[in-house]
């Protein structure tokens, strides 16, 4: 099964089996955002608390999906918890460029190729998230890996535009 080991790294399976920050938060004060992968029906729901200083004080993940979408969501939650919204956004951009630079090279889905050149300058250490690098060899699975990140971006956008959450 050559190639599969690149996709299903041990750490991915670990996050899939024991997802971090699984559950829900009370809304409000938390904000809830949901994302769908219309191709496979996977669904991720993010509950996020951002304090007055723009810090992600808590995050919970709900929903269902494959090993790639679930482990990516789990790692994402661990990576952004306690970070500032700005750092979380920078991380999102770094992660997506890891996914999309390659997807552009292999002619993958252009809709994910929105990482701007800036992202390269602000590259943050991805840590465990590096394990998802192998996904780019399996273009149809890139959407699985980016689902929770797109939902996180959506949550930040919604927070920024909704006056009821200072």
């Amino acid at each position, binding site marked *: 099964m050559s190639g599969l080991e690149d996709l299903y790294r041990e750490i991915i399976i670990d996050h899939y089996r024991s997802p971090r920050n699984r559950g829900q938060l009370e809304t409000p004060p938390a904000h809830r955002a949901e994302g769908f992968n219309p191709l496979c*029906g996977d669904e991720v729901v993010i509950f996020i608390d951002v304090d007055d200083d723009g810090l992600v004080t808590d995050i919970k993940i709900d929903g269902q999906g494959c090993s790639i979408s679930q482990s990516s969501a789990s790692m994402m939650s661990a990576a952004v918890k306690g970070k500032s919204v700005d750092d979380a956004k920078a991380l999102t951009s770094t992660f997506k460029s890891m996914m999309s630079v390659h997807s552009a090279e292999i002619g993958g889905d252009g809709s994910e190729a929105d990482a701007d050149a800036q992202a390269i300058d602000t590259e943050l250490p991805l840590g465990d998230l590096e394990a998802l690098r192998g996904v780019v060899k399996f273009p149809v699975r890139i959407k699985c890996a980016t689902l929770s990140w797109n939902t996180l971006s959506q949550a930040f956008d919604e927070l920024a535009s909704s006056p009821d959450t200072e």
Partner: protein
Amino acid sequence: MSSLDVALIRQDFPILDQRQDGKKLVFLDSAASSQRPRQVLSAMDELYEHSYANVHRGVYQLAERATNGYEGARKKVADFIGAGSTNEVVFTKNATEAINLVAHSWGRPNLGPGDAIVLSMLEHHANIVPWQMLAVELGFEIRWIPVTDDGQLDLADLNTLLDGAKLLAVTSMSNVTGSITPVDLLVAAANNAGAKVLIDACQSVPHMATDVTAMGADFVAFSGHKMLGPSGIGVLWGREELLDSMPPFLGGGGMIINVTTEGFTADGLPGKFEAGTPPIAEAVGLGAAIDYLQTIGMDEIRRHEVELTAYALRTLDEELGSAVRVFGPSEPAARGGVLSFELADVHAHDVSQILDSEAVCIRPGHHCAKPLMKHFGVAATARASVYIYNDTDDIDALVAALKKARDFFAI
């Protein structure tokens, strides 16, 4: 053992004669789209190489041959499904367009506030969304026939659901569970209630003999690409007097008798519903697919698939036991050759990925039937489906690959 000589049949399918990473390709996704035999490909090539021109109206011989090819295909379809007349056979792009045609040309003039139509929880989105779109616009009610735990229609309240309804639109075979629905009973109940009936026969027409006249429905829709034909062509069969009474769907060339600055006069059947240049080579390919299916025999095909489904259900149970949960009826004769399943707690996407590395092609996802997925409490299933070119070797390859997937994720 089998009702069909699968080895011989496979020789007609060049695409199946390939290896993926050195492994024999095992194609188990015909419910999504089948493969096509050389006979279909060469019928289309032959048209393009020797007899192609736009159909109708051309006076030269090339155009006459193309028209004969196109209309000859219509005759083949009519005979294949037991239609009373070629006027009842409308070529569309696919089954989805056929259902949309009914929604627009029959639904729009006949449905409004206070009206109701009945769908089932087994339906493909193609037989849900066109009605929901129309309901938003016209304000009629959509009622749902529920489904039992083993994926069959729950008909306990059928007469109540049909009471006052104007249409029953229901599948003859689920593309998720393979469940065969009791069309005779459904049609009788709908007739009783004065409701018209549309049958989504996408999954049954390719796999078992169809007689639309005996069926007694008002409309039957199916797609060419699931029955060895090319993509880009579908069929709407409708009762002639009903089609006759309906306004056109799309407007344009080919569907008129006369056009003036004041307006237009629509053509008769079936041209009225075929605006624009139709799928000419695709119709010819579909005709060749029907010839091929009839040479094998629809009853033989059905028998082969029941045997193969029984073998698959038995082998899955023996080799994987409770690690596999198969959705749908447990009795092979109550279903088509479509097996949706869950493998332990491995997500369908991951199952398909591992199977692909073994050159086994199955489909993960919601199979365009999200209401049914919700009923089963799953986001996705893995689906394997068989056709005339599959045999027990393919099932054995499926089961072996599933064991690998189970073991891979058991680490």
